[in-house]
């Protein structure tokens, strides 16, 4: 019984210990560029948590990562490595944008769900290819998803730059340049911000904060996926296949069907990754649409050990690292390159240290039942 508390305490403390140790090692880098580590971290925290807009921004930053990590974790649960979230969300985002700008005159209650659905379908289409190849032809999903990421990059470029480029943008005196982007989305496709809702509770968000309803949606989805994985027969089969495909097969579980369903679900969630940015911020998709959420999602899921609620927490941690670094760059003039090193170091150390602590906890648990 005593050990139970120890395990619980270790589990909760793990990320904090990790952050402190990571900060300690990052300090060496900060010292190397002749800045004061304590001041840097102080500024980072103060900037991030003492301003209401920063807190909202952190949640906004975390939103796409929550979706992305959830998609990754579904793959991990069934023993597959969906490294193709990147391509899936870009295709999903484009599909959503397409439905968003090409349909006009619909009321928002119809248009917005339709746009979100388009994103989901886009992600599913792009996840269908690798899982089809895996189940039917035995192609390893890591290879096919990586390759499809590149295909998606180029396809999106082609679609935005050549096929659906907004040619209505005007040049002033024929000079300067315009964005290479899709037409702007109809107002009915835009996701509402959370300002009104929060104002109801007395929280006044500044106008420039883009926190929107995708954040609560992502939290609800995390809970939903927890329920799906841990409670439903489908989730049960998913986990069984993930841990032991052979025994599952002998128990009458159709492995191929689970792979199909699970991977499509992963792709569907991946399709939502870019929508917070698309429908809540840019309102168009350009050549420069944020990349890399798919890969960050892998790190987020790993830190969280694929636990949906852990994913929310670790995505918020990533959101904080991003917001905090904006603060130290603007206020302390820490160069961008250093910040990238800092962020990467923090993430590496957090991953490593949580892993060590978790392994230790697992050993304790195992000893308990042996």
């Amino acid at each position, binding site marked *: 019984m005593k050990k139970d508390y120890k395990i619980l305490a270790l589990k909760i403390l793990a990320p904090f210990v990790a952050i*402190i*140790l990571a900060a*300690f090692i990052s*300090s060496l880098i900060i010292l190397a560029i002749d800045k*004061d*580590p*304590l*001041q840097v971290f*102080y*500024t980072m925290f103060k900037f991030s948590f003492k301003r209401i807009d920063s807190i909202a*921004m952190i949640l906004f930053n975390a939103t796409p990562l929550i979706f992305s990590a959830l998609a990754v974790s579904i793959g991990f649960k069934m023993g597959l490595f969906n490294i193709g979230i990147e391509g899936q969300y870009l295709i999903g985002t484009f599909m959503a944008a397409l439905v968003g700008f090409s349909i006009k005159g619909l009321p928002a209650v119809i248009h917005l769900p339709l746009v979100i659905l388009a994103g989901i379908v886009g992600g599913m289409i792009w996840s269908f290819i690798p899982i089809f190849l895996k189940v039917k032809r035995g192609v390893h999903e890591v290879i096919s998803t990586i390759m499809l990421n590149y295909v998606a990059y*180029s396809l999106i*470029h*082609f679609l935005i*730059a*050549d096929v659906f480029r907004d040619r209505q943008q*005007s*040049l*002033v*005196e*024929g*000079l*300067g*340049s*315009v*964005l*290479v982007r899709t037409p702007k989305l109809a107002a009915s496709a835009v996701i509402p911000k959370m300002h009104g809702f929060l104002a109801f509770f007395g929280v006044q968000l500044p*106008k*420039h904060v883009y926190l929107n309803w995708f954040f609560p949606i992502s939290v609800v989805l995390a809970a939903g996926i927890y329920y799906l994985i841990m409670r439903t027969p489908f989730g049960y089969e998913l986990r069984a296949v993930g841990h032991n495909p052979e025994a599952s097969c002998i128990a009458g579980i159709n492995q191929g069907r689970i792979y199909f369903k699970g991977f499509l679900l992963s792709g569907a969630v991946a399709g939502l990754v870019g929508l917070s*940015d698309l429908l809540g*911020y840019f309102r168009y998709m350009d*050549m*420069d649409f*944020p*990349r*890399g959420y798919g890969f960050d999602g892998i790190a987020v899921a790993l830190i969280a050990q694929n636990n949906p609620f852990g994913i929310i927490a670790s995505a918020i941690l990533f959101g904080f690292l*991003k917001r905090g*670094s*904006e*603060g130290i*760059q*603007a*206020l*302390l*003039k820490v*160069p*961008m390159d250093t*910040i*990238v090193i800092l962020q990467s170091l923090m993430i590496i150390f957090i991953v490593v240290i949580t892993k060590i602590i978790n392994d230790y906890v697992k050993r304790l648990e195992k000893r308990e039942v042996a």
Partner: protein
Amino acid sequence: MKIRKLLALSLVVLLVVGLMTGCGQKAQEPEESTPESQQQEPEEKRIKVGLVYDIGGRGDLSFNDSAYAGLKQAEQDFGLEVTDLEPSGGGEDREQLLRLLAEDGYDLIFGVGFMFTDHIAKVAEEFPDVKFGLIDGAVEDIDSSSNISCLLFKEHEGSFLVGAAAALRSESGKVGFIGGMKSPLIERFEYGYLAGAKYANPNIETFSDYVGTTGDAFKDPVKAKELALKQIKAGADVLYHASGASGIGMIEAATANEKLSIGVDSDQSLTATDEQKPFILTSMMKRVDNSVYETIKNFVEDKFEGGYRVFGLNDDGVGYAENEFNKDLISDIQPKLEELKDKVIKGEIEVPADKNEYEEFLKTLK
């Protein structure tokens, strides 16, 4: 075993605590003067100018560095407090960086590149007392009372001159153009150049190719080199590019075949290798540095004006490069180029900026 673990753990804790307190002592003093206290400094306020590059901007030997040069010059001349920032990997925080500079009390903030168009429009609305400079982009519907100044360039006019230089220098009667990503901006370079060549020699044959349709087209020297070799094979002996870092491939191809090349944006003779220098005819200069400097100067002298500021041949916003390396190549045609420049400034020649205008222009030649 347990004892060893305990020892290791306590050692780590000691180290962390030690470092924290060690740093703490150092940090005590400077902390008193952290940024936020600067706002309260009563003494005479220095003008603060900020600049946000585009992704990977700093060190491009061209556009972004040129903007930085202008900023540095202004810092020296006017005793400013300046800062320059770069957005993170995805570039999603362009808007945040602009806003943070505005919040931090910067008086004039530049966004380098048309990607900043929408973001500057938003932030400028939130901070009406702060002035903004936008390079290469145009915020719609603003006038001189606005706090945004859009700095635009007539790249086609500069390209017209180097086009003429290419035609005058060509022995084969064939010249080529290589663009980066196909877009209205790069098309201005193209048609200005073609028009200049045709104007100088109506019988000249021209080739133009684009590296691609995506942003990657500006960093694909291999593809640019291939295109250049193709044009050289077809007979072109002077090549001009508007393709950012891809252009290096074109210069390499031209040098290897002892053909002439023309650089773009900044004076590329200065950054070329010794081997390439004798083969660089000239460069089409886009003086981003001048535009940044001028905007700051106006601000310091309280003459900042919103709206659109267009830089052309008339105010040396664009032009062609002459330096110690291309003196021999260019000196004999320079009188002709100066004459053309005059005509453009006086409006005697209307340089085309897109395909339609170019076709019209060709008709006037006949």
